[in-house]
């Protein structure tokens, strides 16, 4: 609507400015501050860090850039290990989500239209119930005297309970459970849009159903797969709640480390440095997802 520019310059500017300013102030500026604090010295004060800018002499403004926090991250292999472990856990969780989510999304998209809506509703319903309580539910299921162990023992599969809670297994369960809808939705909307006559054409040209799937459906659903994977992977890397509730207390996850540095050690500069390092790692996938999202929107605009 190019016309808004001419017809209502003030209204248009106002409409743009309000959300823009909000996002600049409460989303962009905070990152600048985090960056700033990641370069400052920890101190016992409130707030617990030294200012970056010093009035060194009367009229000399001195900037003290302290790279110590980042050096600390590099030297202490706790951080290295947490980063790598977070990426590994997030990667495995993404893969598991994809393995479970793809057949589900496929089955949903190919069921008849009336059941399709109900299934979609069922798939997003858990998303609307408390994330925390859903993770909590798994504690009751996975405990040593929890439902799963009790059931297995009652069936005679095992004689004594298996330790499941506070293991990586429990974390994967929690991750997949919580992030599955993020995988399902983009996959479903992609598969649902697909022109089914393409499969008929493939069959007509001599493809067996599985060949048609591999050669037609799968490549066409790739954008959905990528979007779903990124939507799961990015937040999973920084996940805090699931490893704290279901994982081993010693499990190294970067979200937990950041939380601990901040709340338990009250070391804000190191926490900021951890955040910056995490952000640097995630900035590429986030930008990619952003671009894909915008491209999809423009696409929608054209049609």
């Amino acid at each position, binding site marked *: 609507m190019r016309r808004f520019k001419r017809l209502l310059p003030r209204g248009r500017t106002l409409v*743009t400015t309000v959300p823009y300013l909000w996002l600049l*102030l*409460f989303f962009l500026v905070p990152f600048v501050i985090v960056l700033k604090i990641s370069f400052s010295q920890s101190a016992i004060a409130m707030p617990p860090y030294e200012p970056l800018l010093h009035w060194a002499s009367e009229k000399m403004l001195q900037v003290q850039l302290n790279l110590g926090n980042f050096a600390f991250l590099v030297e202490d292999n706790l951080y290295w290990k947490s980063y790598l472990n977070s990426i590994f856990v997030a990667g495995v969780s993404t893969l598991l989500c994809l393995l479970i989510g793809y057949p589900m999304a496929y089955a949903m998209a190919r069921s008849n239209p009336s059941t399709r809506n109900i299934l979609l509703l069922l798939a997003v319903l858990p998303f609307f119930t*408390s994330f925390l309580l859903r993770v909590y539910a798994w504690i009751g299921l996975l405990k040593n005297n929890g439902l799963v162990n009790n059931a297995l023992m009652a069936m005679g599969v095992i004689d004594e309970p298996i330790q499941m809670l506070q293991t990586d297994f429990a974390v994967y369960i929690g991750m997949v459970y919580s992030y599955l809808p993020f995988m399902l939705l983009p996959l479903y909307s992609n598969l649902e849009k697909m022109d089914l006559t393409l499969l008929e054409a493939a069959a007509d040209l001599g493809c067996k159903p599985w060949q048609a799937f591999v050669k037609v459906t799968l490549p066409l659903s790739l954008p959905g797969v990528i979007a779903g994977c990124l939507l799961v992977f990015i937040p999973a890397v*920084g996940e805090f709640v699931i490893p704290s509730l279901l994982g081993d207390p010693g499990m190294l996850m970067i979200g937990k480390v950041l939380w601990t540095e901040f709340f338990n050690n009250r070391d804000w500069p190191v926490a900021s440095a951890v955040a910056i390092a995490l952000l640097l790692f995630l900035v590429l996938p986030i930008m990619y997802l952003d671009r894909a999202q915008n491209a999809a929107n423009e696409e929608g605009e054209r049609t």
Partner: protein
Amino acid sequence: MQGRSWFRTLSLIVGFAFLYIPIASLIVYSFNASKLVTVWGGFSTKWYGALLQNDQILGAAWLSLRVAAISATVAVVLGTLAGMVLARFGPFKGRTLFSGLTTAPLVMPEVITGLSLLLLFVTMEQLIGWPAGRGMTTIIIAHVTLTMAYVTVIVQSRLTQMDESLEEAAMDLGARPWKVFFLITLPIIFPALLSGWLLAFTLSLDDLVITSFVAGPGSSTLPMVIFSKVRLGVSPDINALATILVTIVAIGVSIAGVAMSRQQKARERDAQMALAANQQMIESLKKG
């Protein structure tokens, strides 16, 4: 394709069982008389009674509801503006940054968003003395920032689906731009705003990590209280709380489902009416 249907059914059953068994177990054990969550001690509603007497939980729930209602409302206003800008204003200087800022909160790990917002609030307090301390205001600001991203995406995609010539037609018929927005655009995208509001409300009600960063000492929201209790182990009154929340959501969703199927039926009826109307018109044209 038919031969594969057992596989599809199976994947649906396994998938949905995985999604729903944990929730079902929460509900079942909320009626367990025994304090030991895993031992069935008979049917009881005593945990619901205990929950209703727990002032800490009730207070936190009340705070969470107020925060969720306010932040969802603000998020819908801001998200609608942002969605309008992205869907209707075409290219302008700073658009790339703007669209990046609107979608980034969707995927940003919560620990980062939470930490950065807290540091902003602390810095602002040092510089201008506002917000004084942390509490409901800072929580609301944080939740608006998070949830307006979702509203923006919903509104933007609804607006791109909407035929732009509807707005042009209104302007052509003499309505000024602001009137066009209130008489045409807003009523048409209203369902999208409603679902945006509900989503924002739910997300706000549910958020733990960001809230923990930006909440002050006296302002614990419901998820914060639940988290501190759950960390100490399973407790049946949390099961009761979960059951209440699940029930509310289930009722809400069934209402939405019924409304949707009604709409579907109405659409089918309308399509038939249109068909009949078409016949009628062709007949009358033939006569005329």
